[in-house]
């Protein structure tokens, strides 16, 4: 037997030990070789006369961590027929079924992460024992990448633990601990690490059975199944409503999961159930949504996290001290994030005392909460708070490797404040009010100047936009990336040509909504249109969350300006902070759209089709993103990650550029041309795209 990813060994007494060890990979992941090896060992075990059964274990520190995302992403570009996608998706399913019905008991010894297909492999075994370590994640996260479990997971899990719990796990994609898995009935036993193999062997020798419960006659799904049971009928009704209102008809995977489980748990034949699952799974692999989600949120985000653009010549930098300058209200969460990353915090300036105090207070409050919930200790909290110095001696800044300028910084005072610092200190503006040029103007001595933009609360958000000057030195690039890494933020880089990407895209989105209001589109309709596209925040709410006055100043469009002007200056509706904007709020909680909107912006008797509104919202942002890509201000992958993780653009699109890519450039041009005719020149397609479409219809190269 020729095995590539595993070992098949007799360990005495008829016990076969199968050890999975995928070569050249830090973790075991599901490769086509592994799929085939499972089928091979199943056949071998069935005919191995000396074998009483087998234990499957991992030769690495994790068990099996799931699918090969890179390979998965490329499936879409293969443009497989439904039949081909189906039969290829059947391979692992059939291999596991072979193992499950090989006639010999198989125990699974789970020593580490068992996710996705890894957990599905375990579920096909007759016994599962796991190391008692709460850090070991077990789960079926496929819906997070736009897929569903496709190797029996949607069928075995409900048969093990009931439809309700199984569907919950599959829809949420949650990772659960071994103890939780034991409670749910997903695994049979939890043991200490050194007992793992012994327990698996013990079971094999003493209790080993080779038939799954669902292959026995008269098997009933725990908790019931089929619509003959009114409780189950209600459950499906609730689940369907939940999927419809959360996936909003944009993400096919959650619905496919429901269909696979619903239909699969209604049939009696387990083989029929597996076919039902494969149909749903294979359908998803031909849909761009999984490709978009996986490519942007996993592959490309992974690459961004790996800092491929970091100049290797520069030694890694660890930031030990940073100075934060600004005003209370702007500095706190940044300070907390830095302090959490082991950085000593200093501050300076006129109001340094109150700034420092405010930073400390915030950190203290945050730490208290963490202690309460058991996620931190008093000791750790004290150390963290102590890293934020209350002493604001100007001399203490000299050690700072980075100066962070936040909102409210009085830029003219900086030259004096920072006079004594080394010229290689990194000066990072975290506010759009201060550009690299501003800094260079007042602090010509400093060469390493960047924009480092992240939304508050900094400790929570995971993505940072870095603006680099065109002539940024290697040292500067390396240091900005290292600092981001120290704070565990995904860095997305743009050059200092266009304004901050996320702001610009949000601005386009809001302005388009304002144009709609001005043109008599019902506010509720345009809000619902935006929500139905999957945008994280609807545009009028986003507008309300800012200052309407400031926004008016920033708007280019005169109709958009006029709408804002009417609201804030004629009707004193300045935004959420004053509980009055497009919406009425009560202490920040939304009540409803302002009842007089209709009066001031009379709705047109004929409303625009919602599909067109959806196109307008998605396209106007895509066009904005395109300008960053066109002049190489930003790489496509970074723009896409920023679209989803910062701008709240829906993830099924894969980001603003993937939206164009998925539609095909020529269709996108057509769509924009139509929109431009009806709704204005903001939809004019840039010459760049007309050029590009001559050579290719896509933004990303084919993955195969």
């Amino acid at each position: 037997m020729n095995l590539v990813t595993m070992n098949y060994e007799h360990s005495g007494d008829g016990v076969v030990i199968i050890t999975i060890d995928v070569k050249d990979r830090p973790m075991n992941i599901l490769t086509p070789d592994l799929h085939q090896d499972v089928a091979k060992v199943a056949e071998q075990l069935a005919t191995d006369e000396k074998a009483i059964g087998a234990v499957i274990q991992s030769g690495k520190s994790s068990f099996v961590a799931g699918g090969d995302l890179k390979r998965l992403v490329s499936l879409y570009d293969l443009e497989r027929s439904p039949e081909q996608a189906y039969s290829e998706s059947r391979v692992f399913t059939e291999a596991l079924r072979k193992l499950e019905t090989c006639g010999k008991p198989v125990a699974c010894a789970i020593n580490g992460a068992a996710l996705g297909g890894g957990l599905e492999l375990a579920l096909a075994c007759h016994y599962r024992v796991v190391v008692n370590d709460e850090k070991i994640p077990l789960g079926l996260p496929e819906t997070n990448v736009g897929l569903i479990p496709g190797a029996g997971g949607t069928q075995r899990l409900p048969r093990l633990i009931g439809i309700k719990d199984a569907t919950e796990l599959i829809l949420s994609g949650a990772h659960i601990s071994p103890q939780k898995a034991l409670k749910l009935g997903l695994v049979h036993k939890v043991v200490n690490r050194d007992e793992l193999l012994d327990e698996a062997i013990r079971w094999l020798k003493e209790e080993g059975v080779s038939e799954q419960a669902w292959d026995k006659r008269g098997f009933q799904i725990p908790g019931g199944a089929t619509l003959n049971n009114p409780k189950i009928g209600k459950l499906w009704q609730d689940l369907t409503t939940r999927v419809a209102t959360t996936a909003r008809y944009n993400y096919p995977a959650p619905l496919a999961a429901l269909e696979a489980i619903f239909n699969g748990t209604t049939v009696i034949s387990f083989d029929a159930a597996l076919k039902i699952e494969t149909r749903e799974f294979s359908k998803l692999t031909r849909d761009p949504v999984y490709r978009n989600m996986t490519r942007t949120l996993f592959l490309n985000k992974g690459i961004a996290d790996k800092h491929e653009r970091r100049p290797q010549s520069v030694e890694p930098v660890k930031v030990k001290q940073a100075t934060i300058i600004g005003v209370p209200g702007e500095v706190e969460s940044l300070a907390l994030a830095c302090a959490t990353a082991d950085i000593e915090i200093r501050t300076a300036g006129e109001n340094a005392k109150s700034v420092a105090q405010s930073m400390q207070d915030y950190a203290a409050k945050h730490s208290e909460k963490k202690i309460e919930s058991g996620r931190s200790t008093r000791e750790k909290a004290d150390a963290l708070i102590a890293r934020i110095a209350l002493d604001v001696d100007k001399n203490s800044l000299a050690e700072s490797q980075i100066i962070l300028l936040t909102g409210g910084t009085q830029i003219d005072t900086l030259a004096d404040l920072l006079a004594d610092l080394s010229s290689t200190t990194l000066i990072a503006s975290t506010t759009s009010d201060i550009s690299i040029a501003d800094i260079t103007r007042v602090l010509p001595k400093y060469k390493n100047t960047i924009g480092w933009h992240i939304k508050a609360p900094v400790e929570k958000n995971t993505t940072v936009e870095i603006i680099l000057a065109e002539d940024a030195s290697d040292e500067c690039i390396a240091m900005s990336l290292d600092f981001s890494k120290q704070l565990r933020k995904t860095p997305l880089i743009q050059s200092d040509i266009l304004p901050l990407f996320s702001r610009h895209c949000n601005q386009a989105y809001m302005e388009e909504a304002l144009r709609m209001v001005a043109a008599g589109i019902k506010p509720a309709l345009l809000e619902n249109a935006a929500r139905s596209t999957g945008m994280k925040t609807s545009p009028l709410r986003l507008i309300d969350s800012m200052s309407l006055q400031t926004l008016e100043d920033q708007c280019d469009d005169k109709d958009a300006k006029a709408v804002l002007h009417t609201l804030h200056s004629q009707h004193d509706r300045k935004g959420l902070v004053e509980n009055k904007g497009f919406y009425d709020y009560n202490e920040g909680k939304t009540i409803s759209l302002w009842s007089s909107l209709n009066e001031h912006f009379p709705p047109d008797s004929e409303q625009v089709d919602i599909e067109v509104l959806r196109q307008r919202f998605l396209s106007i942002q895509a066009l904005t993103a395109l300008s960053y890509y066109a002049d190489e201000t930003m790489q496509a992958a970074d723009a896409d990650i920023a679209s989803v993780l910062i701008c709240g653009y829906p993830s099924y699109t894969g980001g603003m550029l993937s939206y164009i890519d998925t539609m095909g450039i020529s269709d996108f041009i057509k769509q924009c041309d139509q929109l431009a005719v009806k709704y204005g020149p903001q939809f004019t397609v840039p010459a760049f795209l007309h050029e590009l479409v001559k050579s290719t219809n896509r933004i990303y190269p084919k993955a195969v």
Partner: protein
Amino acid sequence: MSDAYIYNHLRTPRGKGRPSGALHSVSAVELLSQTLIQLRERTQLDTGLVEDVIAGCGSPIGEQGSAIGRSACLKAEYALTTPGQQIHRFCSSGLEAVNLAAAKVMSKQCDLVIGCGVESMSRIPIGSSGGAWSSDPSLAHKIHFVSQGISADLIATLHDFSREDADLYALESQRRTAHAWDNGYFDQSVFTVVDSIGQPLLSRDEHMRADTSLEDLAKLPAVFEKMGADGFDEQAISKYPELEKINHIHTAGNSSGIVDGAAAVLIGDADTAKKLDLKPRARIRSFASVGTDPTVMLTGPTPSARKALEKAGMQQADIDLFELNEAFASVVLLFIQEMNIPHDKINVNGGSIAMGHPIGATGAMILGTVLDELERQNLGTALINLCVGAGMGTATIIERV
């Protein structure tokens, strides 16, 4: 084609559809069987001549399942040669049973048929039969399934009917029902249901609240608000995106009540009436069922009414009385608005808001009610219709002879 005539009809009183209801101890097949027995006795019917018993039922499962029309015939000791069947079109099942009975007569494939319906909501709760439309994800998702109460509130929101509009309508329904009972309008067609040893159980509708006031009604909670907040509102809005929110106006007081009951209508051609020495009371002029948007679901009455009028070659002005099932106040308010019907021409003796809506039986019941009323007022024509689950409507036009 032959003409189909209504010879006679009758119904049970409607018992509260809960464990304390007067008819709770009576099985569905027994309710229908007593109705068939009463019909046989009142018309001196030779049941051997009945060529089909078509029974409507809203939840055709369990004791209400498996061709309850035939089961009730057997229980009522109709001739063994009389077949029976069961049909299901949600709330219009009972009217659809009448329509199908009429169709059999009109097409001359039968001379004498009973169209009937039954529902014991206290024993088989509404929604018990589940079904793909509401619970199969692949379908419920596609049609933005929401439950009827949400659809009723959606209609109110789309057409600006206020809570007060609905409550005023409900109050009038109670008043008219009480008036009709007090003046004996229902007496001739409602019989007393008895228990298995012959003791009377119920002879009057049990759900009505003649003493209701507008203030009482105003106090009732909006029953579908929570259900809406749990996701249905969002689903409704994603289908009707010009709405910001759903205005929940329906309560236990302005929605149809949950009740138990049965009704039957005897239908045949002119020759058979002569043969049996029965006097036809009305002719069935036309009937129609339509499909509409399944999410707002309950807007079938207007298109079904228009279609039935067209089939009959009649104008709206040719109809003397309208009888639209009061599933929810907004359904009737919308019909009144769309068809521009004066309130004193519709549901003149109240309806399901006061008396309750035993799903599968209601269609047959209200057809009988309005026929009695035509006779009482000496009028000629009536249009009967109901809104129906999954987005449908069914209508029937009758004309006295």
